[in-house]
């Protein structure tokens, strides 16, 4: 036994005597562990049920099969990347050889035309939804602002909004496809037609929540604030920029969040029907493919779609929290 234990002075410890876990860590640990339990129970139920369902494409996938396919899809992506690198390396080598034989040889690098992998499809979908969303916002926010500012304009436009709001993307799609092929005729197009078609379909469907929320936000500015503006005689544009828009910001962002969620849902349906590249096409292709792995691979896509939707919503929430001046309201 060491001396320090027998001495009257208690030994100095390197840790604190009363170690307390901070409250916020306790809280988040608690909520995380509950989430974990929830997911675990769900996965068990899922696997149990899935084992008992047989379809013409084999057994319905459970979590185990899904995890397997995630690995498969990822390694396919890796192989495809390697193939692409090899393809360019071969061209480089061949070109180098041709130049060595004849310095004036006409050499060129051909683009790689390999099969799009799951990861490529995710990227395409994300690009499409972003593009469609941005187009929609450029229309929706000014339109909503005009509707909110002017009662006559609102009365004129509102029926049209109400009419088009409930229309499904699938109804728009054939029209948009034909319109794009008729009007989008560039020599060297910056975007592919299918991309533009999907993006415009997304835009048409995710326009409405932002239009409506902006209208409400702009038209419901506190009357006292408007009176302040009248007393100090703010000119119209300053009134709009300094009073109306800031006041409407929380609702505009609520609308944008709803729009992005709608856009993401619409996109998958549009891609599926229009055979535009993206996650929707991936699902449709797998379905048509009809291998024993197809259902598991579709399930992976379902989970990825959900996860990306979740991330997009969290991103918008973060932006919304950042720009909202009303720090008292809890945004969820």
């Amino acid at each position, binding site marked *: 036994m060491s001396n320090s234990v027998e001495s009257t002075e208690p030994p100095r410890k390197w840790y604190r005597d009363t170690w307390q876990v901070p409250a916020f860590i306790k809280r988040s640990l608690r909520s995380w562990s509950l989430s974990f339990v929830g997911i675990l129970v769900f996965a068990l139920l899922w696997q149990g049920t899935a084992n008992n369902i047989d379809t013409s494409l084999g057994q319905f996938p459970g979590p185990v099969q899904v995890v397997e396919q995630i690995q498969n899809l990822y390694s396919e992506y890796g192989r495809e990347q390697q193939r692409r690198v090899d393809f360019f390396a071969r061209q480089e080598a061949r070109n180098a050889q041709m130049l060595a034989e004849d310095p004036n040889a006409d050499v060129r690098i051909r683009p790689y035309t390999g099969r799009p992998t799951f990861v490529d499809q995710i990227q395409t979908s994300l690009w499409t939804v972003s593009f469609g969303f941005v187009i929609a916002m450029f229309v929706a926010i000014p339109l909503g602002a005009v509707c909110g500012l002017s009662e006559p304009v609102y009365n004129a436009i509102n029926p049209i909004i109400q009419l088009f709001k409930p229309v499904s993307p699938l109804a728009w799609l054939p029209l948009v496809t034909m319109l794009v092929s008729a009007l989008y005729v560039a020599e060297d197009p910056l975007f592919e037609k299918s991309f533009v078609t999907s993006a415009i379909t997304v835009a048409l469907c995710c326009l409405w929540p932002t239009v409506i929320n902006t209208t409400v936000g702009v038209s419901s500015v506190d009357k006292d604030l408007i*009176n302040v503006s009248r*007393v100090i*005689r703010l000119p119209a544009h300053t009134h709009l920029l300094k009073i109306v828009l800031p006041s409407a910001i929380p609702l505009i962002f609520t609308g944008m969040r709803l729009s992005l969620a709608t856009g993401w849902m619409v996109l998958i349906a549009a891609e599926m029907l229009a055979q535009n590249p993206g996650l929707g096409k991936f699902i449709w292709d797998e379905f048509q493919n009809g291998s024993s792995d197809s259902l598991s691979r579709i399930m992976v896509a379902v989970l990825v779609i959900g996860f990306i939707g979740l991330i997009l919503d969290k991103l918008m929430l973060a932006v919304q929290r950042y720009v909202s001046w009303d720090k008292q309201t809890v945004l969820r």
Partner: protein
Amino acid sequence: MQAYLEISNVGIEFNTESGTFRALQSVNLKIAKGEFVTLIGHSGCGKSTVLNILAGLHQATEGGVILDGKEVNSPSPDRAVVFQNHALLPWLSVYDNVELAVKQIFRGQKSKAEMHDWIQHNLELVHIEHASSKRPHEISGGMKQRVGIARCLAMQPKVLLMDEPFGALDALTKAHLQDSLMEIHSNLGTTVVMITHDVDEAVLLSDRIVMMSNGPAASIGEILEVPLARPRSRLELADSAQFLQARQRVLQFLYDKHKYPGTVAA
């Protein structure tokens, strides 16, 4: 009396779903420069409507208002309004709230540095300079109202209009703000028209108390001069006979109006 602000024969009708509603009828009042006048009366008697007409936010159906020789027919910084719920822009800091008004009103007249000094000066007048970078939701109700007053003073108004400015505050905060207001009034000599529900407040602050009869078709019932010498101290006034007498008169008026609503006092 030299009238600086004159309300002559003002009446107003509102169009409602159940026909026209006459809120005010033949309101006549002359206010001298530098005078502090409060309007008191029961809820719905049209006090706020009078104030809004003075501000130019409402248009009188008949009659009119003349301020310093000019007719009032639209809102203007000449007639700054302190609103009951402060009406600060929640997304701007205290300083920026005042700056918005100052920039608009003194554009082309004051340089940037002059504007800055002027904003600081007004924030100091209401003793709020220490909170100039705070947002409205970070400060107390009393402080918000101080900012509201600073914003109005920064407009250099000919008349300061106050719509129940201390109605939502607790008694202690209210007392502080009343003292600040008396200090500002005596230093700047601003003409003030203020609406209140509080009889003590009316007697303490006013040169004259305008008591309004009940609506519809409300009008001025009685005007009471408060001959108390300034500067006034609430502690000394607490047992001054004149103070108590004035207080008694106003209470009596309001009580009678409550008992026999609709009758116009002689």
